[in-house]
């Protein structure tokens, strides 16, 4: 019972944090573009409005996918909060991505189907880099548990600088920001309209939005592992990374997924592999 209450509290906090981060993102992006931007709480109003709308689907699978994506994100976050195994957290998180893609591909819309495949490339980018990071965590701390990072005594960043750079790429991809907002970006001004979200409306879209908040929070939580020596590092490093991604979003055009796979991911994977060998060697 106590565990359930605690889990709900963690999820509530993550939801609040995710929504506020989304609000901060929108506000800050607006200011960087010389616009006023919405209030910080706007994402909450948006989601509440979406949840209250009519349910419509083009394929019944679309009713299932958002639920699965959301529960995978929530489950991964809870596992993180309970200091679980990073590999398992990544597997669970990956399952969320799987359902997102399945939902997108289930619809007959060509936009959403093409975006589903792009999302797969994006997952390839993110997941490989994070799994390499899990390997690095193991090599440094002797354990795949996230608690190992805190027990290390010094910031992981000192030992994994190259991996951190690679992680920033994964974070950009995950936050759906330029130059990698390929499979669905926050506004629909993209050749694939809203990518994997194109065919979602109302409550289903609302759930996906919440899932996205939780995923961003999870990534920032993983980011905090890089400086897990104290609360300040655990707050400031992810926040800096978050802000850096938003600035990057505003100073670059969108690139193509071929570039992302060829140059972006290629370089990031090599960097992280070099970091891994360096740790061992």
């Amino acid at each position, binding site marked *: 019972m106590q565990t359930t209450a605690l889990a709900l509290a963690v999820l509530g906090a993550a939801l609040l944090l995710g929504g506020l981060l989304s609000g901060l993102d929108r506000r800050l992006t607006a200011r960087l*573009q010389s616009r006023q931007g919405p209030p910080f709480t706007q994402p909450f109003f948006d989601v509440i409005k979406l949840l209250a709308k009519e349910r419509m689907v083009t394929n019944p699978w679309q009713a299932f996918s958002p639920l699965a994506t959301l529960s995978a994100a929530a489950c991964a976050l809870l596992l993180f909060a309970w200091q679980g195994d990073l590999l398992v957290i990544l597997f669970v998180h990956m399952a969320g991505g799987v359902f997102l893609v399945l939902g997108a591909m289930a619809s007959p819309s060509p936009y959403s189907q093409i975006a589903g495949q792009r999302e797969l490339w994006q997952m390839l980018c993110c997941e490989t880099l994070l799994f390499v990071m899990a390997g690095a965590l193991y090599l440094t701390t002797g354990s795949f548990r996230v608690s190992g990072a805190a027990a290390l005594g010094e910031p992981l960043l000192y030992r994994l600088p190259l991996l951190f750079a690679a992680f920033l790429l994964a974070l950009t991809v995950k936050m759906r920001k*330029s*130059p990698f907002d390929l499979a669905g970006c926050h506004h629909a*001004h*993209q*050749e694939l309209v809203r990518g994997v979200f194109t065919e979602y409306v109302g409550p289903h879209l609302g759930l996906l939005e919440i899932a996205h908040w939780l995923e961003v929070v999870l990534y920032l939580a993983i980011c905090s592992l890089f400086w897990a020596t104290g609360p300040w590092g655990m707050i400031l490093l992810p926040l800096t990374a978050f802000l850096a991604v938003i600035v990057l979003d505003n100073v670059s*055009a*969108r690139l193509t997924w*071929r*570039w992302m796979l060829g140059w972006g991911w290629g370089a990031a994977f090599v960097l992280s592999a070099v970091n891994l060998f360096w740790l061992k060697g």
Partner: protein
Amino acid sequence: MAGTILPFGPQHPVLPEPLHLNLQIEDEIVVSATPAFGYVHRGLEKLADIRDFRQMIQVVERVCGICSMIHALTYCQGLEELMGIEPTPRARFLRVIWSELHRLHSHLLWLGLFADAMGFESLFMQLWKVRERIMDINEATAGNRVILSVNVIGGVRRDLDSGQTAWILSELAEVEKGFSAMSRTILHDYTVQKRTRGKGALSRSQAMELGCVGPMLRASGVSQDMRLLGYAAYGELEFAPVVEQDGDCYARCRVRFAELGQSIGLIRQAIAKLPAGDTSVPVKGRPPAGEVVARAEQPRGECLYYIKANGGKFLDRLRIRTPTFANIPALTVMLPGIELADVPVVLLSIDPCISCTER
């Protein structure tokens, strides 16, 4: 199997206007593209049957929301030629000023949309922020922001006093500062170059063969500009067309960006040389029977008006050939072979004005 077939438009968020493309794609590479028209056809040319030749000025202004001033200008110049009217010198210079203001705001708008097509949102916002000053000038001098409605047969409806011209010059200096601050991003940014260089390239001969006009043609190395005809006061001003050789999206971007500076230079020259006098000559009577072809350089290229009058209040025939219509055939050559992600970029590179095209 026929591969992927995608309806690109008419209501696609990337497109500023409803063009429809039937895209056939394989592995996200375009195999073929078939444009389709008619989604926003309004039959404006046919309105000549029920609106008299003066009212038609306001109608042709609405052919296009972005280059409205030059539509009206071309129409008025055509009728002036037919009726044998010579507009006053001051009117001719004022027409240049407003034309170039229009070109400025159109090019800034296009640069913004172009940036948006490649997902560069902040550049888009920044350019439109700069554009706001031009819109302010339009509103302060002509009364409206976009559809200026300044042209009449025989001259212009509004005048500029010395205070206004001074203010325009100072505002233009700000505008120049504004877009110059973007020049390195637009011309040298890595991500922008990745998305534009080598995309949708047209050789000189291809551009000529496909009948491209305006910046499209100039970007492929052809020095063609209707302003060289010397209509309005262009014959008395110094300028040379901006020409680039590569013929790709990047070259088109360079041409239009350079034309921003050129337009500001032309306005400065026109204000400096602005003669005194009336803004219009009184016009009596109706256009005599006969036909005339008028041409002018719009931001998107050559605009052509064919006017046939029968001596009555209503024109016999009005036919408009807009620059986008001339540039669209190039799409069928430029699109195959590029990535789906580059379709909006290449599409925007012709600066499509679909309302113009479909009238």
